[in-house]
């Protein structure tokens, strides 16, 4: 799958300081773009539905009503969707140190690695935080 919207740096690449950090954070958490939305409404709508389902799944997991395999299942499903949508909407990844402002067009494998690794970290952090707060009841 080839990037279809733009292959260049994100618009905020030239920003600096806290503003740039905020942009970066939003970019990691929000896979969609306005441009992508206009071009791929069907995928975007499915994505929104999936996002809602994912949030519900987190809620269920937190209240102990969802098993580990179900959580892993939706995590995988969401990650696959995010890979597809990012390749359409934000087809770039950071090149070089995280504090740098260099980006490169992302190939399929780049995006798979980026999304899987990012979601793994986000998932692990959420999991540990919820468990330490005593909100996660699913693990025995």
């Amino acid at each position, binding site marked *: 799958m080839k990037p279809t919207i733009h292959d260049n740096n994100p618009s905020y690449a030239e920003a600096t300081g806290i503003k740039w950090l905020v942009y970066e954070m939003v970019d990691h958490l929000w896979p969609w773009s306005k441009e992508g939305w206009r071009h791929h409404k069907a995928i975007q709508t499915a994505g929104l539905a999936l996002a809602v389902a994912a949030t519900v799944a987190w809620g269920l997991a937190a209240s*102990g009503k969802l098993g*580990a*395999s179900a959580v*892993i299942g939706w995590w995988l499903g969401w990650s696959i969707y995010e890979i597809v949508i990012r390749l359409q909407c934000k087809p770039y*990844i*950071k*090149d*070089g*140190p*995280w504090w740098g402002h260099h980006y490169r067009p992302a190939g399929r*494998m*780049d995006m*798979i*690695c*980026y999304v*899987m*690794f990012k979601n793994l970290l986000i998932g*692990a952090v959420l*999991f*540990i935080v919820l468990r330490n707060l005593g909100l996660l*009841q699913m*693990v*025995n």
Partner: protein
Amino acid sequence: MVLIRRYFIFALCFSVSVLGFSVAALADSEKSTDHAVQEHHPSEGHPGSYEAPLPVELSTNPDLCAYVPCHDVFPNADYFSPRKGRPSYVEAYRNKKHGQLENGHHEDADSRELIGYAFLSTDIVDIPAYSGKPVVTLMGMDVTGKIVGVKVLRHSEPILLVGIPEGELTKFIKQFVGKYAWDKLEIGKARAEGGYIGIDAISGATVTVISENQVVMRCAYEIAKQVGIIKAVPRPQAKFTSVLAQYSWDALLAEGSIQHLMVSPSDVGMNNTGKPYIDLYFGYLNAPAIGRSILGERNYDGLMAELKPNEHAIFIIANGAASFKGSGFVRGGIYDRIQVSQDMDSFTFRDTDYRNLYSIKATGAPEFSESAIFIIRSTSYSAAYPWSLVFLGNKMDKQTGTKTFANFDREYWLQGRYLEGGRPVVVKAEPVWLKIWKSRIWQIVAFTAILIFTAVIYANRDWLVRRSSRKDKRWVSIPKYAIWLASIGFIGFGLMAQPSITQVLTWFHSMLFQWKWELFLSDPFIFIFWLFIIISVFVWGRGLFCGWMCPFGSLSELFYKIAGKIGLKRFQFTPNSVLHERLKWLKYGIFWGLLAVSFFSMGLAEKLAEIEPFKTTFLVGLFNRSWPYTLFTASLLGLSLFTERPFCKYLCPLGAALAMPTTFRWFGLKRKQECTTCSACAAGCGSLAIDKQGVIDHRECMLCLDCMILYYDDHACPPLSKERKLRVKSGLPLTPINAAGYYIPIYPVPLKGTDE
């Protein structure tokens, strides 16, 4: 070429199928083992004890020897009693006159002679081994305290399933026979001082043997003490200061005079209900300030008047789904849910040690559903030293329904201000992992030095590659080959510190379920290696580990290089790019497959992780394993003679796991504008990591630095060579090559007065 390609595909398929066969063979052998267990007694039918099924009744049935092979640890016993005591044991008897009745009944007790005690480790201690699960061990000890038999009934140690032959474990535990319950045993060479006895370890299973040593000796000591072989040693008793003030509950809790212990349902293998399994508070009552605060003046005085010298009172209040009084809360019974432990001594309570506790006088005390005062009657106990309240639970395995012993404890140490002269100096035993680190300190230093040397060499790669050329790569090759040799000889075969995908899987699980630093610290080399790998992957990519440091990867490439030098070069080949592009995804599939399987069955994932030939090569040895493993590893190494690193490129799940974060490496290799059209580097890339557009796929790159040597070589890099020729032809000087890989440009300086 077609033939070569076919051979390559055949060889790779052959290797994978050999592995599949070996895993299937392993599974079959386990199936047959399970079958044997169903038909026979566990002692007779189960040749291997890895995850051997144990009867559900094992932890509860009074007739222990009906379920475990007690005769294996006491071959000359004629009769075993039901379980006795707390922790439980069985007595082994021999008939004085060998006259068993025809109907199978034994003669009466007078005709028997007590010859010792048999006991099950999981009745006594809760010490996990490397897998996080206990090694279930049956032991026999004679009436003098000498260990006469040890048998492992079940373990979950993956290395003993697929790495080290289980016979090694049998050999290891035989070393305990003949030792006494009070002996101090140490793994490896014993220290000169302190009367330690050294026992031989199992190479590659250090954590397992250290934990098993603790299990056997702790159990023997506990039972020897309980049956009176080891006499109680009095401790100096506490003398209390005249602090008489009364404190609130919160103040006592804050200073540690009341301790809190909570066990959740998930800790004992039950479904969480939002309510703790048990939530208890406890404290020591003899200290006047604490006792008066908790009981009130009158009750405290009454209790102290009742206690004799060297008797101590503690209180417990609790809430939760379970009761700390347990099923022993009947007259004449033993309280089987709680005990007090101090160092190696433990103190249990009977009904005569129990007093009612109706209320707590300290202000702010929580509501409670259960309460008690217990009296410790022993000179071995002293309130001046740290002690622990232990809640004894049974952890249930949801899948099998079996229960294993699990204890939960909280330490208590009286504040110094309540003790005359303050707290005595207590030297606590070093944690096991620290002992391991100390015992291998020089190897750790050498290992760390190799890692630092490698990192320093690679960090200075620019300096090295500038001094090298396509025809003379010694500046890079010599340090790299030296590191390879150290990696294969010292790290691989010597320290057996070959990182593996199983460690990545263990990390995932530990991160999600229960993180234990001790587990990771118990193998210093793997721990340090992983620190190095994590840092180097994010800084430079996986290539530094895979290409320079991995013992198997180094061995594989060394085979390839040596084969080339001894005349096999004409048979060596590189898979074509189409085939390579397809096959390289295989390793990612293997990694994700293993990760997915591990969430359902860690044991199966461990078996499937045999796709890594590391254990066969370094931990066990090529010829110490069953033939499918040997054949698989030999095939991969054989293939390595003809093509560079086939395992690393196409099969290694660890390489795949490290390749993914390599996407975010901070510092990659350099490229020039002309690299998009020139394929000189790609032609010589052994990793096949440079595509037709000249882009380096850092996930596949082993950082051999050949392309970087070319980058600065003005006789080999086509654009640079072209410029060199132009400059020579034009009579221009050859300026130094800059960081971008070009000669420093020459700009004509305008002569003075030119403008005029």
